[in-house]
């Protein structure tokens, strides 16, 4: 037959090949557009919806579905509260909230849980009033805690299916190219990398971007690409950029943290993993972050350069990069505004998503290419198991983050902690909550001594050779007990308030309700 353009098309292609003849009238979307200018087309983008309510209606969200958020604004996040307030007003019930993490600012969720707007939560961590209320039995369904790598894997393998993702973005163009900063304008509420949000954008059924800066097309570089975005809603403010660097990522001048950091650097230097071309990550927490400062001196003294740093990128790490001491930065989450600024300006500072960062089953996950990681801990036990989720009072006040992922992936994992905090010992017989298994932790560094995991005899040898004084983990525990005494068991009840999963989704531990006597 002849197609619309008058060319002869053999029937065999149409019948057996199941192809169709060209016809601009029915080849929808391929017809040449009206002669609108690019600027005009941007103004008419159908993705921009004039209210969140409208976007929610278009997304097809139903009661009982799963909604997701990222936590790149940490304590400065306005998006979670804004969206869930609107969903509550719209009458939604029984939603599952799957956030990459939740912080102090999310206390208003308590009311939405009580009113059954939110029935269950999946997160990396919880802090503040919300965490305390959940520890005291607020929710009927226990919270599922996942590491960043564990969450990425759960989402990409559809064990955690996201129906609608609500992703705050400091910049977005009319077709959905979104990012944590913009090279077009200085005044965005920059959060830097959008590494966790990119997983949601990749796998959610519907993606709604909330932004306070609609910028001209094409918004490059983009963290989230236009083909992943369904709707765009402009709201007055998505977050407070001054609070990105808060809580877990504060810069320390605490002399004890600095002492721990100095010891950790001595351990790194003697570990056998401190070579020209090595790779590193420092976790959040004062002492862990401070190791970067001392590491710099050691790197200069020994003329060693790092091939890459992974993270959780901080201003400290950026400085080393700009000095030429670290060749490349891989950034799933920018810990402060200096890091966000560097991501915008430095060519070898690369944004990566959480699957790329830490998916346990993806070959080339960057955590598996790490030499050294320095991590914080709330509690460590004599089996080198770590707790980063519950405080010494048994109340949830932390996040798994990338702790499990990097401890397992890195060739050499160091956990730093002060021996005692106030009246609490950091070294126990058994951690209250198991978040990182002891066989993935190689060394514990405290201000009062260093213990190497007996599973790593070669490390013990190297430390001895470098004249680094070692203790056993039991000796550290006893040293702490001499100072603080022996704690009584916490008054846990039977109700399970949290499920701690390992990277692969298996259950590592449970968190129980703490007796509410206040």
């Amino acid at each position, binding site marked *: 037959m002849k197609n619309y353009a008058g060319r002869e098309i053999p029937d065999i292609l149409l019948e057996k090949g199941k192809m169709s003849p060209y016809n601009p009238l029915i080849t929808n979307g391929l017809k040449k557009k009206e002669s609108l200018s690019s600027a005009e087309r941007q103004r008419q983008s159908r993705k921009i919806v004039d209210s969140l309510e409208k976007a929610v209606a278009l997304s097809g969200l139903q009661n009982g579905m799963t909604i997701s958020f990222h936590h790149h604004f940490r304590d400065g996040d306005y998006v979670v509260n804004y969206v869930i307030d609107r969903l509550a007003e719209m009458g939604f019930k029984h939603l599952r909230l799957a956030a990459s993490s939740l912080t102090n600012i999310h206390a208003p969720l308590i009311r939405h849980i009580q009113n059954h707007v939110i029935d269950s939560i999946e997160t990396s961590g919880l802090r503040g009033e919300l965490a305390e209320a959940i520890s005291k039995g607020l929710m009927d369904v226990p919270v599922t805690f996942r590491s960043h790598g564990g969450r990425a894997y759960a989402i990409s393998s559809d064990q955690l299916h996201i129906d609608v993702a609500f992703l705050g973005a400091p910049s977005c163009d009319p077709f959905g190219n979104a990012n944590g900063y913009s090279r077009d304008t200085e005044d965005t509420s920059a959060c830097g990398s959008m590494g966790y949000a990119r997983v949601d954008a990749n796998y959610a059924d519907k993606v709604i971007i909330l932004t306070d800066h609609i910028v001209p097309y094409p918004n490059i570089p983009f963290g989230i690409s236009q083909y992943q975005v369904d709707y765009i809603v402009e709201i007055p403010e998505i977050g407070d950029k001054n609070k990105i660097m808060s809580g877990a990522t504060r810069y320390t001048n605490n002399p004890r943290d600095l002492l721990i950091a100095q010891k950790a650097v001595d351990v790194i230097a003697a570990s056998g993993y401190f070579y020209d071309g090595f790779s590193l990550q420092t976790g959040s927490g004062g002492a862990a972050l401070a190791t970067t400062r001392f590491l710099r001196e050691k790197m200069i003294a020994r003329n060693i350069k790092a091939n890459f740093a992974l993270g959780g990128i901080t201003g400290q790490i950026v400085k080393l990069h700009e000095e030429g001491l670290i060749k490349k930065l891989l950034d799933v989450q920018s810990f402060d505004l200096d890091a966000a600024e560097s991501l915008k300006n430095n060519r070898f500072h690369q944004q990566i998503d959480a699957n790329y960062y830490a998916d346990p089953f993806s070959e080339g996950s960057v955590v598996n290419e790490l030499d050294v990681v320095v991590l914080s801990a709330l509690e460590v036990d004599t089996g080198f198991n770590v707790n980063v989720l519950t405080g010494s*009072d048994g109340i949830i006040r932390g996040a798994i983050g990338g702790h499990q992922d990097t401890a397992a992936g890195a060739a050499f994992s160091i956990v730093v902690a002060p021996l005692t905090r106030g009246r609490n010992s950091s070294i126990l017989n058994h951690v209250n909550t198991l978040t990182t298994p002891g066989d993935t932790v190689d060394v514990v560094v405290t201000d009062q001594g260093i213990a190497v995991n007996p599973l790593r005899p070669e490390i013990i040898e190297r430390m001895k050779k470098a004249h680094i004084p070692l203790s056993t983990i039991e000796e550290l525990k006893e040293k702490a007990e001499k100072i603080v005494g022996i704690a009584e068991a*916490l008054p846990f009840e039977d109700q399970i308030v949290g499920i701690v999963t390992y990277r692969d989704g298996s259950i590592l531990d449970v968190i129980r309700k703490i007796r509410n006597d206040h």
Partner: protein
Amino acid sequence: MDFLKKGLAGTLESGDIFIEIEKSELPGIHIDLQSKVKNQYGKQILLVITETLKEYGIDNVNVKAIDQGSLDCTIRARVTTAIYRGSGKNDYRWE
């Protein structure tokens, strides 16, 4: 030692304990303890306060204790100071 007035010692700083001791109409030692580590160390803190009071032969008092994670040595020091201040004595027993 007799309590002429309220004996106060300590602060609300982290690692410290604030102690207030006054005479009680009721016999015995009555301690009102607030502590962020009450679940883990409450019994021990009460024991140290009581023992220190007994060392000075003190009975029939109300004690208010606001603990911010203090160690036993701090608790003893603050209680002892509150005792001396409340009783107006200064014949200190230096250790």
